[in-house]
């Protein structure tokens, strides 16, 4: 008689752990590469024990002192009299969390490294034993759970995922369980109710379809995923495996090669009850089956699933095995549906056919104040989904500034120079500049610095009479001459008495004196020896009317050889000293041109024109050339939106590269994902900071999702 298992079921909630009498029975699973589950039933319970049965409570099931299952309560049925049914998921259920997968996609990376990277993000389980595996490409998406990523990767590496419940670790093993048979089960002795099912092979020509769609979709090579022996026996059976996470052909080939061993042979499924349920077997172990009436002789099979527990007070063990190659569990209905949903979700998540890219480019000479522009549409019909959301994934710019590109050759004209004909309009210019210098002719004709005495005329004493020589500067008929008389008188007498002093000019005219009274008896009191009178007189030489208004001559007669007399007189005949100088000045004189000239002045066109006969063809040669050097040192990049309300460009983003850069790629124009934020017309301008032009080239790239 063999000993049956001793089970202990513990519940932990709120930091408290208690053993639960699962009087209604319990069961738990150990599945190969699938999530495990358990169920615990109580027929009746008090509130204290029931307080352990809460969503999220952790359930431990020990068999013979060893933890064989550890999970989380995810569903509770509460019945009369404290009856409870708790559905439990294996602790690996927490791997439903989604990861960031910062290192995805992995390129030519050891699968062990990828497994470790994925598990490093989990907050509940850690990496245990990770067998080496292979080097491969792998991609995990943000919507993929850790478990799905691990399962997907393990499927491609052909490895098994093992949950280590005692240590809460995930092991990735080349082969979970024993790879050689650990037990022989004989029908009717160790096992009973054996049911053996077989089906046609699933496929011996496995084709993996990965990322993308259409002719460019990633596909495994036709030489991968093949098994010639199976084809010979069963014919070619093509098995299509869609897996949108596959992103390279090498990965698709690897997966196809990993799948075909499991699908090339007829699928065989064995269900049976183990008589002695106290078997220390795990999913993944190989066992040997013998059953004469089912034609099974030393049939080596692999355990794909174990379910054990207590029902009706009795221990049970149910096992599902499959042929060693097809070591995937034949799932219960719900699990199959979930797998289908997962495949569909992978397909939806990793679908690439709905992505699209658009590019716009321009190349133009530009400078500061004259930017190069690229106008592009964010079309509603392209980038908006059915919910009205803008599905722009990225908007970037590549740009390059090069030396100015001239695109024309030399302009030449054949024929003669065009001639201007006819006349301009009239103009009256001003004269600018100065004449040449021309001194006045001045002849000193008398200079007497002292004289005194004489009899006065009229009143008093005439002190002196000064006769002068005729004065003429020689130009006969010249009416611009005049006498310039300078007189200074000093009273030489002592004392302070007053006297009167006068001066008279006379000149001969045909023997008659014409007179002009220059100074009439000026009273003065000077007697201190100072000069009391000093004065200039200008006496026209030829204009008689000026000399004597009362003795007018109607005509201006040039007085040639004119003699003149200055009379000085005083009332009391006192002593004076008279200084006198007479000059003859010819104020009328000529200046040479000096630098006189007409001021610069415009003329209206008048009748000027070009002789049409002189206009010959001008040809511009074909040539391109680059300037010798760049002018700009940096650029300003702007993203603008055409505001239909204001009919103006609204600037949304301005980027000045730091450090300065005249060439860059993948410049983010979205300002951290903000723009474009609306459909319509947008533009990118690139303005170099040079004062003269450089050649500016740019490519705007937009990646967006596309609703069909």
């Amino acid at each position: 008689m063999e000993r049956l298992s001793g089970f202990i079921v513990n519940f932990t909630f709120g930091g408290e752990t208690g053993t639960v009498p699962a009087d209604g029975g319990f069961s738990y699973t150990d599945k190969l590469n699938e999530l495990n589950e358990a169920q615990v039933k109580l027929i009746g319970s008090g509130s204290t024990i029931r307080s352990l049965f809460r969503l999220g409570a952790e359930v431990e099931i020990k068999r013979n002192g060893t933890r064989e299952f550890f999970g989380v309560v995810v569903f509770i049925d509460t019945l009369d009299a404290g009856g409870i049914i708790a559905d439990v998921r294996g602790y690996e259920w927490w791997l439903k969390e989604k990861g960031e997968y910062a290192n995805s996609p992995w390129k030519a990376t050891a699968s062990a490294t990828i497994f470790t990277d994925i598990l490093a993000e989990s907050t509940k389980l850690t990496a245990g034993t990770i067998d080496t595996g292979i080097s491969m490409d792998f991609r995990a998406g943000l919507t993929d759970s850790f478990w799905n990523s691990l399962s997907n990767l393990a499927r491609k590496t052909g490895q098994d995922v093992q949950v280590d419940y005692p240590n809460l670790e995930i092991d990735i093993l080349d082969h979970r369980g024993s790879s050689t048979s650990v037990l022989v089960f004989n029908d009717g002795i160790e096992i009973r109710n054996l049911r053996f099912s077989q089906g046609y092979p699933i496929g011996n020509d496995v084709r993996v379809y990965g990322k993308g769609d259409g002719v460019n979709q990633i596909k495994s090579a036709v030489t991968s995923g093949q098994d010639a022996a199976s084809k010979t026996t069963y014919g070619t059976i093509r098995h299509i495996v869609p897996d949108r996470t596959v992103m390279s052909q090498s990965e698709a080939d690897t997966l196809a090669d990993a799948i075909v061993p499991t699908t090339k042979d007829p699928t065989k499924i064995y269900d049976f009850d183990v008589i002695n349920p106290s078997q220390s077997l795990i999913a993944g172990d190989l066992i040997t089956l013998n059953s004469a009436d089912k034609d099974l002789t030393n049939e080596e099979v692999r355990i794909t699933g174990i379910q054990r527990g207590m029902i009706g007070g009795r221990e049970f063990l149910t096992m599902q095995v499959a042929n060693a190659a097809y070591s995937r569990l034949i799932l219960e209905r719900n699990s199959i549906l979930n797998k289908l949903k997962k495949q569909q979700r992978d397909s939806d998540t990793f679908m690439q056919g709905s992505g699209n890219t658009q590019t716009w480019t321009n190349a133009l000479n530009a400078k500061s104040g004259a930017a190069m522009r690229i106008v592009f549409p964010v079309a509603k019909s392209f980038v908006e989904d059915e919910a009205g959301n803008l599905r722009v994934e990225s908007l970037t710019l590549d740009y390059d500034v090069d030396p100015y590109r001239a695109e024309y050759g030399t302009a030449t004209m054949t024929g003669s120079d065009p001639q201007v004909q006819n006349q301009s309009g009239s103009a009256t210019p001003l004269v600018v500049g100065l004449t040449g210098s021309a001194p006045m002719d001045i002849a000193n004709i008398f200079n007497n610095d002292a004289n005194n005495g004489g009899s006065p005329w009229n009143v008093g004493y005439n002190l002196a009479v000064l006769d002068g020589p005729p004065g003429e500067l020689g130009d006969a008929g010249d009416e611009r001459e005049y006498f310039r008389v300078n007189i200074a008188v000093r009273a030489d007498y002592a004392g302070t008495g007053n006297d009167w002093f006068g001066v008279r000019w006379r000149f001969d005219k045909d023997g008659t004196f014409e007179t002009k009274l220059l100074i009439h008896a000026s009273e003065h009191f000077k007697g201190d020896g100072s000069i009391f009178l000093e004065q200039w007189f200008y006496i026209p030489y030829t204009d008689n009317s000026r000399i004597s208004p009362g003795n007018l001559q109607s005509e201006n007669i040039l007085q040639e050889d004119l003699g003149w007399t200055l009379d000085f007189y005083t009332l009391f005949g006192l002593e004076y000293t008279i200084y006198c100088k007479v000059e003859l000045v010819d104020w009328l004189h000529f200046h040479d041109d000096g630098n006189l000239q007409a001021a610069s002045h415009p003329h209206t066109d008048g009748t000027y024109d070009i002789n049409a006969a002189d206009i010959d063809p001008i040809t511009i040669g074909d040539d391109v050339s680059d300037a010798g050097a760049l002018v700009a040192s940096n650029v300003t990049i702007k993203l603008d939106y055409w505001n239909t309300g204001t009919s103006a460009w609204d600037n949304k983003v301005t980027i000045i590269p730091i450090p300065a850069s005249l060439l860059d790629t993948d410049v983010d124009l979205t300002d951290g994902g903000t723009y474009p934020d609306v459909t319509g017309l947008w533009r990118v301008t690139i303005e170099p900071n040079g004062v003269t032009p450089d050649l500016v080239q740019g490519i705007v790239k937009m990646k967006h999702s596309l609703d069909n």
Partner: protein
Amino acid sequence: MVMKIDNYEGASDEFQWPQNPQVYDDLIDSNYSITNLSYQRHHIVVSGGGISPKVIILTGHFTGTNKLVDYRSLARHFQESQKLKKLYFESDKFALGIGKQSKKTHQGGRTNFIDYVATYQTILGIFLDDTQQTHTDGGAHKTNAGDVATFIETISGNVTSGSTDITVSDSLGNAYLIPKASLTTGQAVVISFVSMIDSGSGVFVSTYNYTTVAGSQIKTLQVTAGFGMIQLAAARTTSDLTIVNLDGYTVKFRNGWSA
């Protein structure tokens, strides 16, 4: 010997048969399961030994002026299925269980009698001594003088140290612990083999290893070996038990009998 029935827990409410039942059916059924193999000439046996709990059938009558009162007393006990009962067949041994059915017959010719049939469902397959034995820590050990392993009814004491688990184990592979997180030094701990607990709506459920600390039930008792039901084998003493971190503990049990 006068048969009687009384409450197992709480206040006594004894009923003595004025006349013992004339016939009762006490079947000893070994505790095993047997699985037939199709077309085979051998079967699979799974057994943990012991005796299955049983249904005891009582057939008897009441007579005299109190016959109806007597029957009602009997019926009351058998209807109080929310309480564990002690059904005594001998003056010093009882079957622990609950009343299942009772019916009385009306016979035209026996107007002086009330004939009845009553069935009693035991929860244990063994009989227990009426006399409860008590072993106190440090005192003389007591012996299970019965012929079958018996269950330890209560273990009680005070927490020696609130920083240590309380552990209890027997020599038959059963053990449990109470974690220190549920204990404070000096608190009174009582671990009962079985008790009927209100599920919350007036419906009672048998609760094994019912444990209180400082008078309040706890849920943190953890079985660490076997079925977690502490037992004492026949002819063995309480020295077979190991109890840690419980000051001045007392162990109470009754001799176990197969019949």
